[in-house]
């Protein structure tokens, strides 16, 4: 608790010092970037944060600072302390933020807003055989992490917490390093991070990748500006999130997929039937009258 307070004070100090020169100027916003599983390289994450912040600054017409986070704890703390206006985060992390984070847009990559996850190992085998083995996993809020694996990656067909010993790591790089260092028998990483010397034991379905979230009720303004922001490497332009689709994802993470139930078979649609609705002789060819062919010559019998 104490440590927290100190950090908060420190944060306030830092903010204070940052804000001091611009006191008369419009309020400064901060963009957080936490992409521990989407971008493997810390430098890349930093550059992206800077580039996006300057784009946003230009479009929003107010100063935007960038802050890149390497660990979920740091990021989550910054959020809870209200330091961030908005953030680009891995979807699983956004889900863990809960209602505080309002999803605004997907940061798509190569035209994809989703990605698959893989359970990789150095040896051949199956997930089944990894029972009781260690699985390196990028750490999020903690208790919610196994839920993401069980509910989303494994689709509810296997309980990650029961099946594996979960080994939390800060990011994808460390997960893979842990694997190499035999600190874990397997690692859970997005498919794009799988290198050739690894064995893919399992691939998940499609899972949302990076999302832009609003953290301080400025979602509308943000949405308006996004169209003009355009692509910021290594991502494409943002794609607005439609309706409740992210809520569904959040729900999936929290509750898992519903239990499968038998589904009804759908018989083919009943089509119209012409003779049922129209008298059929009205549809057949209309033959001309043949009365003229009944004519008889005026010949008379005579003897």
């Amino acid at each position, binding site marked *: 608790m104490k440590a927290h307070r100190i950090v908060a004070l420190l944060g306030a100090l830092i903010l204070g010092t940052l804000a001091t020169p611009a006191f008369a100027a419009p309020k400064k916003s901060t963009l957080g970037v936490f992409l521990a599983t989407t971008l493997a390289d810390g430098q890349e994450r930093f550059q992206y944060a800077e580039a996006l912040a300057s784009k946003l600054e230009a479009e929003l017409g107010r100063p935007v600072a960038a802050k890149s986070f390497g660990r979920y704890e740091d990021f989550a703390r910054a959020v809870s302390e209200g330091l961030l206006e908005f953030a680009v985060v891995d979807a699983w992390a956004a889900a863990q933020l809960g209602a505080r984070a309002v999803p605004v847009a997907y940061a798509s990559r190569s035209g994809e807003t989703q990605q698959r996850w893989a359970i990789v190992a150095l040896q051949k085998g199956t997930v089944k055989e990894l029972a009781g083995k260690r699985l390196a996993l990028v750490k999020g809020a903690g208790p919610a992490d196994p839920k993401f694996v069980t509910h989303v990656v494994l689709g509810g067909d296997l309980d990650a917490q029961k099946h594996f010993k979960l080994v939390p790591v800060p990011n994808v790089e460390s997960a893979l390093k842990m694997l190499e260092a035999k600190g874990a028998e397997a690692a859970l990483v997005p498919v794009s991070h799988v290198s050739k010397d690894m064995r893919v034991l399992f*691939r998940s379905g499609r899972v949302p990748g990076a999302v832009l979230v609003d953290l301080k009720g400025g979602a509308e303004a943000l949405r308006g500006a996004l169209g003009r922001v355009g692509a910021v490497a290594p991502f494409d332009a943002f794609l607005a999130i439609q309706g409740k689709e992210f809520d569904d994802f959040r729900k999936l993470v929290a509750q898992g997929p519903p239990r499968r*139930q038998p589904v*009804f078979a759908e018989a083919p*649609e*009943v*089509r119209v039937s012409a*003779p049922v*609705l*129209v008298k059929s002789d009205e549809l057949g060819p209309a033959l001309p009258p043949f009365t003229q062919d009944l004519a008889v010559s005026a010949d008379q019998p005579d003897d």
Partner: protein
Amino acid sequence: MRPRSSSSRPAAALVLLAALAAPPALAQYREPPMSESQRLVRQGESAQVSANAASASGDKKGAEEKFRKALQLYEQALATEPQSVAAAAGVGDAANALQDFQRTVDRVQPVYAAHPEELSLAYPLGAAYFKLRRFPEAVPVLEKVAAADQPEQLIVHYYLASYYLYAQDGERAVTRLQRYLALRPEKLAANDFQVQELLGRAHLLRRDAAQARASFEKAQAGRPEAVSLQLGLASVLELEGRMPESTALLERLAPKFPTAPEPKERLGRLYLAAGDVPRAEAQAQALVKLGNTSAAHLLLGDVRLAQKQPAQAETEFRQVLTLQPGLVVGQIAVGKSLQAQGRHEEAIRFLEAAVQAGGNSLELWSTLGSVNRRAGRFQRAVEVHRRVVEMVPRRALGWVLLGADHFATGQWDQCIDDYANALQLEPDHAGAKLWLARALAHRARDRAEASRLDDAVRDLKRAFDLDRSTATARRLGAAQLDARQYADARKTLEAGVALPGATWRDHLLLGYARLGAQDAQASLDAFTQAGKATEEPDEQAEASVGAALAEVELGQVDAAVQRLSAVGPSKAASQVAEANLPRVLVRRALSRLEAGDAASANRDLDAVDRVGTGKRADLAKLAQFARALARAEEGRYADASAGLKRALVPAQRWAWPNTRPLAEAWVLYRQGKVPAARKLLPGAAKKPMPGQPKWVASLTGALLRREASLAYGTGNMKGAEKALRAALATEPEDAFVQHNLACVDWRKGRAAEALTVWKRLEPTVATASLNLGIDAQERRHEPAEAVDAWRRYLASGQGARAAQVREWKERLQGLYGLTESASGAPAEAAAEETP
């Protein structure tokens, strides 16, 4: 014959006496004394024997005297004992010998009536009747005698043969003549040639040319050429249709026997019949020169008629009557010649007078009636011809004449009855057949005009049985077409086009009949044939329009539309085209909709809009109706509902009374408005039209399934089960219903039952595999089984949930290392599609 009855009682007494007396008493038996009558008969017999002897020795006078004596004795005997067969037979024989035939009839007939088995009576009685020309009485009596086949009564065969020749009954005449030849004693063989000549004529009557020729040739053999036999041979040639040879024979005979009139007369008649009037006239003139005979003037008169000189003909015919007053053919001829001069009233008066004068001849009455008919006096014609019917009730003649009278007045019912009566008597009467067919055709036309098509068809069928001609076939076919009896019309017209004289029109009608009978290819062939059979552009246009209708049925709609859009100037053709083009398109649109193809349906309906429906408001409404259905199929439900209302208000001729509620229920169903559709449907289906119950049942089933599905989706198992059970009640075999009911069972914990049903239905319902997989994974935790089931589901290729199920399957395969196949691990297989 001795009378036995008179001696039988004393004989019985004698037998008794003999039985009582000793054997020697038998020697005392003596014949009883004769009665008076018997004695007289004995005397008569001996007188008759003397008469016959005198006759044989040529003593005519003596013979006559003896016969009179015999007759007198027999008559006394008969007076003494009026029922004496012997006496009566004696009277008959003697009276016949004296040519006193009336006496024979008077005396013998009463005794014969009591003893019809007595041939000794039948023989003289039959002969007497015959000599008195009382043939109706003579023939049965003579036939009885002839049946006994007694050589001494040989002459009856000859009598009968000559009667049958007179009555034109060749068959019987031949029988009798052959019996005569078989029975006649050798000494009469010299006269066989005369019998052979008669046989020849009898065979002519039988129309047996070969036998007739053989008889005539037998008669002629070894004898100088006789005119009568040669004329017989000429008739044989005529019978064989060898007219030139017959003519040549007569042309040889006429100069060879210059004084014989018959060859000239026959030759003249032959020339006349052949239309060679100048030569006929030459023969007639020669005949007249030869002798001022009635036959000569009759021929000359007929020549004059043929020369269209009825006045001169009349002169000749009057000459006939001068020569032979009351000659029937002469009277008829005069009547005809008068009528030919337009002197109808005179003709009638003349013939009436002839009839009044006692000319009780069939021909005369026949002609009198016909002359009246030609003069427009139909009532008298019918009256007179009824008389003819009475005169010869066993011949067709009178009925044929009456038929002609009723034909002239257009009284078809009577006319048809008349000819039918004629055919009852003479089933092969060609004239009766032909005119009956015509009369039936007339009546059929009248009936068709009065919308009594079935009756018209019946008449024409009868006509076609009588007269197998193209004209009659066409009439019958046309009536059957109008009566929509297409299969029958097809049969009729196919027979019709095979007959000689078939025209383009027959092929056209056949085309329509086959079209109606739903044989489009054969129909197209017939229309093509019709088009080839005429050079007239209008007729070709009619054939082309017919061909278009056949093409539509064959699915060659574009070609048909092309043809129908360009029919040319023919009014008949353009009427057919106008009536059909929009129909064709609407019909195709509807069949597209039956397959769920709204886009194609819309294209056809656009074409209807372009072509237009002319004055046919009902067709326009029908097109609107089809458009509304297409809108529903496209998912434009509001447009569909509005369109249905526009099309069906007011009620349309082409629609069933319940078309609108049914169509609306269907639209609601497509819209997913299940309760509203369910509410509408029972009322609409209360009075189902033909063909509707099945469709209504399947729509009801679909609505119940959908209701169940909605309930199931919200977890309302009770509601789902209720709806499915209701669906099952109407369609117990419906696999989808059974399957879905199993889903409800599973949810209610009856998993084992559900599994049984799904397994049974797996081959027909793909979703059953999906559900078997779900059960395996969710309830029994058997991922391998689940993977197998889902693989089957995906392999069926008809799963609407393929993407999701593939994901499930691959996930389980990934987690549990369940390989897809020998080709490799699931991960590798899936890697290919990974972004």
